[in-house]
């Protein structure tokens, strides 16, 4: 092929970019919030609350909004989920609380729980009132590795219980995927950073950035200097495509999203005219939609299985489609086509499922591309874990119901653990539960390791 890659920065600028990266779901006005709140039936043993991984008392907080008590609503939310502001924006509510809403059963139109949660947490962020304070000092020290949602949820709960917490974060900023992952239009106005400021406002949490496990410290050292350790390192590696990834223009979607989230000027990011994204999860949707919104002309997600099997929810797929992204299912990568060291196309093979197994049909299709984004999953960086006596399985940390690893005094949660749900809200719950378990163990009421 004699194609020359067409990659350029500044395909869109100014107002176009602002519009494309504005709030995906704008905040409810006061009247909209009241009307939305009024639709809540204040269910008993509410299915929405049962469906929430952090068990937020949703009927209560919506009633608080309806009665003109948004700060009370925020308190109800944060008591269960200290990351209530970001979860309001990024939770796949359509598969959690809003799917369970009885209004969904009755009318196919649930109460807008996510947007109401945002209404309440926005009110709190604007007001700035600090609900939490450090508990009476216990004299115990806990180290938290990773300042993402799991790590900071754990740190916050530990601080309220009076334990001194040190958080070690490999990146330059705290926040984890809230800061470096996710689509920018879901976290506008630096909400991720403002939320973390609020969380750290409890006091008693020392965050140390630029400190990577294995490079700057070991779990053994942490274990010696602290009474307990919570491991919330997420998934630090991405899975390679394995088709001769040496070509330029083949880009790790997670890296690009992080760059986009941190860019002071989104127009500075170079994007291809034609873009293909390989993958079917949230990362694939986020990269495809954002690259399209940066000005790529033609963006196609190619996923090896069917639409229904994609990790991304129907709502997320709709966001991509509405942004002009094409989703092509049942196509698996076969070969990269390069020219002068740069990718210019990808050859894909049509698939089907035979006896539960995905097989190629032999039918090939080539999609031209100037950039090829790889979003086929992330993996755990295992260095330093096994040496510390932490049992791994299927490339993840094994924990018990309370988040205890096999290594005494080390708990783990979030995306790095086996059975992790790859959800912010689930990570928050892991952190909260681990903190409670650590507290029980440190007060002599609980065990320090998994059986």
């Amino acid at each position: 092929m004699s194609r020359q890659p067409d990659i350029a920065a500044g395909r869109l600028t100014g107002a176009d970019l602002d519009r494309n990266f504005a709030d995906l779901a704008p905040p409810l006005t006061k009247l909209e919030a009241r009307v939305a709140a009024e639709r809540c039936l204040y269910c008993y043993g509410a299915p929405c609350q049962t469906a929430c991984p952090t068990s937020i008392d949703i009927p209560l907080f919506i009633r608080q909004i309806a009665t003109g008590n948004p700060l009370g609503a925020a308190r109800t939310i944060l008591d269960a989920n200290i990351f209530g502001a970001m979860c309001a924006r990024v939770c796949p509510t359509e598969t959690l609380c809003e799917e369970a809403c009885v209004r969904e059963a009755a009318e196919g139109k649930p109460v807008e729980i996510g947007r109401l949660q945002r209404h309440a947490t926005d009110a709190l962020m604007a007001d700035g009132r600090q609900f939490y304070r450090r508990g009476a000092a216990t004299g115990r020290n806990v180290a938290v590795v990773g300042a993402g949602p799991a790590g900071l949820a754990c740190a916050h709960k530990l601080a309220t219980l009076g334990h001194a917490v040190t958080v070690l974060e490999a990146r330059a900023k705290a926040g984890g995927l809230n800061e470096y992952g996710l689509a920018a239009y879901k976290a506008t106005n630096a909400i991720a950073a403002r939320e973390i400021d609020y969380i750290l406002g409890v006091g008693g949490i020392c965050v140390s950035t630029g400190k990577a496990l294995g490079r700057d410290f070991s779990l053994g050292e942490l274990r010696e200097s602290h009474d307990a350790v919570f491991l919330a390192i997420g998934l630090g590696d991405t899975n390679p495509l394995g088709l001769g990834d040496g070509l330029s223009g083949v880009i790790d979607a997670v890296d690009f999203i992080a760059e986009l989230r941190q860019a002071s000027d989104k127009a500075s990011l170079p994007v291809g005219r034609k873009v293909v994204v390989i993958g079917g999860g949230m990362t694939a949707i986020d990269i495809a939609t954002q690259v399209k919104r940066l000005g790529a002309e033609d963006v196609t997600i190619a996923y090896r299985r069917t639409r229904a099997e994609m990790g991304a929810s129907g709502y997320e797929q709709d966001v991509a489609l509405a942004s002009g992204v094409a989703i092509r299912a049942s196509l698996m990568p076969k070969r990269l086509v390069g020219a002068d060291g740069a990718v210019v196309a990808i050859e894909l093979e049509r698939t089907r499922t035979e006896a539960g197994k995905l097989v190629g049909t032999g039918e090939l299709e080539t999609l031209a591309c100037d950039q090829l984004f790889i979003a086929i999953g992330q993996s755990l960086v295992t260095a330093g874990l096994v040496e510390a006596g932490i049992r791994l399985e299927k490339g993840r940390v094994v924990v018990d119901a309370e988040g205890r690893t096999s290594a005494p005094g080390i708990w783990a949660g979030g995306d790095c653990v086996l059975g992790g749900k790859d959800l912010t809200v689930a990570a928050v719950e892991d952190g909260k539960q681990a903190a409670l378990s650590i507290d029980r163990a440190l007060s002599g009421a609980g065990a320090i390791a998994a059986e």
Partner: protein
Amino acid sequence: MADLSINFCGVKAPNPFWLASAPPTDKAYNVIRAFKAGWGGVVWKTLGEDGPPIVNVSGPRYGAWHSQDRRVMGFNNIELITDRTLEVNLQEIKQVKRDFPDRALITSLMVPCTEDAWKAILKRVEDTECDGVELNFGCPHGMSERGMGSAVGQVPEYIEMVARWCKSHTRMPVFVKLTPNITDIRWPARAAKRGGADAVSLINTISSIMKVDLDRMSPWPVVDGEGSHGGYCGPAVKPIALNMVGEIARDPETAGLPISGIGGIETWRDAAEYIALGCGSVQVCTAAMVYGFRIVEEMISGLSNWMDEKGYRGIEDFRGLAVPRIKNWENLNLDYAVKASIDQDLCIKCGRCHIACEDTSHQAITQMVDGVRKFTVMEEECVGCNLCAVVCPVDDCITMVPLADGAVDKRTGRVIGGRRTWLQHPNNPMAKEPA
């Protein structure tokens, strides 16, 4: 096609929908718009005696109780009677009646409690050739402090006296508008009848403080930092008004006295309910103030279609049909029993029936059956109170099913049958009638 026309105490109108004496009927401009929109009649906003015009507050006059989506559920006002001159009002009434001869035009009046005052104004109103007068014995704010409005309506003897004066000084039909700010509506109604009134109109507004402004620590609406009680109306008062209408309709002393029903009427259905309780016309104010005059189109079409569906050719065909079924509690059948029944196909599993029954009533609804979230009625506990059906958000999901004769009430073990009221009940030591 049903005939909606009425003849109310000799006053004819093409339909029973009248606008009540209130801001919407204060001047010709509004009344003409109302008649063009289709209203069957109006009661012109209350005229006072000749003299310096009434002065209203120039701060807020109206307040409302809103639902969450800002529907006006209740409304109140501190506006007084017309603040335009008597002469201007009378001229306009005369012209409007001339221009709309087929519509009912009643003039509301409120003057000091002397025979001369009433005699003087009645003479001038007669000259307008309007269809009748309505004596405003109802307004609870402002004018009542000056010995008029509800200050008269709260004393049956005054009602009787003024009604008698009016009947002796005019050939026009005289309606007496009653205040609900009393203990028993039958007393003022009986007084009006004794005084010779042709009809009663009710209810006027209820004394109210809409809410307290918690920032200014003042009744709301706030007039320069302070507030006064107003007159409450709108949909929220309809049940109170219906009861008062029903009490007058079934009181042997006033039975048959024509009633113009007022209070929270927003739809044809509301109007039909008042008519079923005996009203010969209905009066509307709040709904018109909230939505504009065109609501009468829905009222006419809705009432007409419903009457066609029921086979009622005219208003008289169903007027008062519900009155004989208003009873005192002691006359209700204590041998009758119902049980709640939850339609599992319609149930959306919100759990409200369960928690209402569990926390506040009879512990008769499950929340879990065989480990599954399921709401079913335990008939051995259910007293048939209707609370679950009231709190259920789904239409017709919970119904109260009567037990058939011969069936056993699982709660009491009693075999259903018979018709004993409290007056015949064995538990009543004062039982007057044999079981």
